[in-house]
């Protein structure tokens, strides 16, 4: 029994190490005073300073933030509506449309939207990327919101209706405050998914528009440089903060994804 537990712990620790060592290395080398990313030389903030002077990178970060803000805002509104609709009404087509983008290989959505935009003569750029991000974020928000609704006490809405509230009033005054944690968590999730997305952005951004992941991609295709480590570290920090906040607001989030 005891030896079995030790074996289990060892295997689990190997798996945890496998998950974390690569990320720790990326972070550690962002402070390493060497171009090579091969062995520890000494501590430095140089790579962060270089990053602050890298105009391309800053422009890419600006694009990413802008897209993520718009995409999370719009997809939260649409995703919440979809979540409410799927919870309250018998919908046949909506759940399929909401869930398929999550279930199919990402690349399919990327190429389908590429054909679509080019055929309609839509210039590929910030707008086409935002449209694409909204389309895949709606599903994630809808799932979180619907999970929240499933745990809600419906008698509260009934009570409001019995007291003479219109359906709209009952929704705004009762349902919405109750599902708010789910909505906010969904919004943070959408923001994270958008700012991190590479595949769909890769196909819908066109030649002139660069987001942070696209910038990282073109940098690592050329060479490994500690500047990438620095921007990666900052991006990880941002994601970590967003996820911790989202998880605090809605603990169930951890089990929905």
């Amino acid at each position: 029994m005891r030896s079995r537990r030790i074996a289990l712990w060892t295997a689990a620790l190997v798996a945890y190490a496998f998950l974390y060592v690569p990320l720790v290395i990326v972070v550690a080398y962002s402070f390493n005073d060497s171009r090579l990313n091969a062995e520890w030389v000494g501590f430095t903030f140089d790579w962060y300073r270089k990053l602050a002077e890298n105009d391309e990178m800053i422009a890419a970060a600006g694009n990413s933030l802008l897209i993520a803000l718009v995409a999370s805002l719009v997809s939260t509104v649409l995703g919440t509506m979809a979540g409410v609709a799927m919870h309250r009404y018998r919908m046949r087509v909506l759940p399929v449309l909401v869930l398929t983008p999550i279930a199919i290989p990402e690349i399919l959505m990327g190429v389908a939207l590429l054909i679509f935009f080019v055929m309609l003569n839509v210039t590929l750029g910030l707008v086409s990327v935002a449209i694409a991000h909204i389309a895949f974020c709606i599903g994630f928000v809808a799932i979180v919101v619907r999970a929240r609704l499933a745990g809600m006490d419906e008698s509260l809405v009934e009570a409001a209706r019995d007291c003479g509230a219109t359906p709209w009033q009952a929704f705004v005054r009762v349902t919405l405050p109750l599902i708010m944690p789910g909505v906010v968590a969904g919004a943070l999730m959408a923001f994270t998914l958008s700012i991190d997305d590479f595949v769909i952005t890769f196909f819908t951004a066109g030649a002139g528009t660069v987001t942070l992941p696209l910038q990282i991609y073109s940098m690592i295709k050329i060479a490994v440089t500690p500047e990438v480590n620095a921007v990666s570290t900052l991006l990880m920090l941002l994601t970590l903060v967003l996820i911790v906040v989202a998880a605090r607001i809605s603990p169930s989030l951890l089990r929905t994804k």
Partner: protein
Amino acid sequence: MTGATLGALRESRWGKWAVAGPPLLYLVVFFAIPTLIMVAASFRSPGEFGGLAPFVGDDGRLDLTLESYVRLAEDTVYLEVFLKSVVYALVTTLACLVLAYPLAALIAQSPKKYRDLMLLLVILPFWSNFLIRVYAWMIILGPNAALAKAVNGVLAVFGVEPVPLLFSSFAVLVCLVYVHLPFMVLPLYANLEKHDRALLDAAQDLGASAWQRFWRITFPLSLPGVYAGAALVFIPALGIFAIPDILGGPNDSLIGNLIKQQFLETRDWPFGSVLSIVLTVAALALAGLAAWVGRRGAEEIARA
């Protein structure tokens, strides 16, 4: 919901469409229609300068053809890439299962108060940027890094030529496993957590060894979780293009790379569409098969 409110809501049908309409419309326009256009594009011929040929040609004939499908069926090069992708995705799924199982089992056996934290630690890396996680392996497997030196040092003792770790199938597979591991842990944990310990205790009382208890009780009961995890790993792994693109060698091109090439380099939309459609159908079919086998397995165990 009681009958009264349900009735009130049904009364106002406009309410339903006011709520469901906007997301429905958005997804029809920006997901369903683009997907249908892509399906339609797979039956057309490529244009002279990329894109599609005009629908009505100079000779007045409509541009509808099965050419791209025939090309996929006839040229074994594409079939080979498909097979290679399936093999990579299968190896990834198996490796994830082997790594994830002990972890999920340990979390399921741990005291309740620690479980959320242990799960969070599994999910957290998944939330860091995908490219960063790929990039990390460029560093670890790099020619100047400690790992490559150690491996080649050992190989040199046996007189074997040094092998590059980066830009190889090995690098691609390690990273595929790394990126998809959380998808296997979560459904496995969700299943293992529900197991009734009394079954194991009973088996032990009847003299079953730890090994027997695992293979005769725990593992068969966990099959629905195994299949769910397998589907969650297999589908994205099958369509991946960035990992072989960044970490692979010249022979590691997978179906995802082929699709990317058709759309961004050769600009053959019809053939790219055919590849995308076949990829999606294959992924969904295999996942559906896994789900079906999983449900059958669960039913059989429930009956036994």
